[in-house]
């Protein structure tokens, strides 16, 4: 027997009996019955071989689909996005940060060095003169313009600018030295 299909078909005991009885005494009914069984058998084999090949790819496609859905609708907050280190958790507004900023604003300019966590920066800023601290504080922490600061301290705009640049230069130089 060379044809695998016929071989596997006739392996079934019921079928081979049916075929034997057909060979002994052939009737159209028996022939039809055999054909019907054979058709079912062939279709089974076809489906089986088709899906043995395809199931693997289908399951990969399913995985892809799931990944796409979970990317669009992330359920877990601390899970990284695919391409970066940010997670949805980072994007949620934090109340602590707001409070922190209010604390910053309410710091006295005379103790401006308390803003810095960096030790060297703390030392440098604490060594600045009161005037320098006040000006830097007004411009960078309060966010005022040089113009406003000048009118508040009743000095010229140029003087403010000069003191600011001098202070920044001093900070920069000393920071490099450390």
């Amino acid at each position: 027997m060379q044809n695998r299909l016929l071989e596997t078909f006739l392996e079934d005991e019921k079928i081979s009996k049916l075929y034997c009885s057909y060979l002994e005494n052939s009737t159209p009914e028996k022939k039809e019955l055999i054909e019907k069984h054979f058709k079912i058998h062939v279709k089974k084999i076809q489906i089986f071989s088709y899906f043995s090949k395809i199931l693997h790819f289908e399951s990969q496609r399913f995985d892809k689909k799931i990944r796409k859905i979970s990317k669009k609708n992330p359920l877990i907050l601390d899970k990284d996005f695919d391409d970066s280190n940010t997670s949805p958790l980072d994007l949620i507004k934090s109340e602590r940060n707001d409070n922190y900023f209010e604390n910053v604003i309410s710091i006295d300019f005379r103790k401006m060095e308390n803003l810095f966590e960096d030790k060297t920066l703390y030392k440098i800023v604490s060594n600045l003169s009161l005037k320098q601290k006040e000006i830097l504080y007004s411009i960078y922490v309060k966010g005022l313009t040089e113009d406003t600061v000048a009118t508040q301290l009743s000095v010229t705009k140029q003087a403010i600018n000069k003191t600011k640049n001098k202070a920044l230069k001093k900070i920069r130089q000393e920071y490099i030295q450390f």
Partner: protein
Amino acid sequence: MSELIVQRFEEEVIEMLKPKIKSVLRQTNPQNREDLEQDLILMVLTAIKEKDFKQIPSFFELMEEEKNQNYKL
């Protein structure tokens, strides 16, 4: 009657493909496994109903061929 046969046929095919499906499930993460299994079985069922497979000669034609080949040998 014929509906019953179809149903039995479907069950047999799924039973036959079960081991293969189970092995494929292992590649996805555990929480999606059941979903994937359902998806694959559904796919098999629609294929049984709708897919046209290549027509194969009937049993007796194949038997004739087989005999002819044996003669040649």
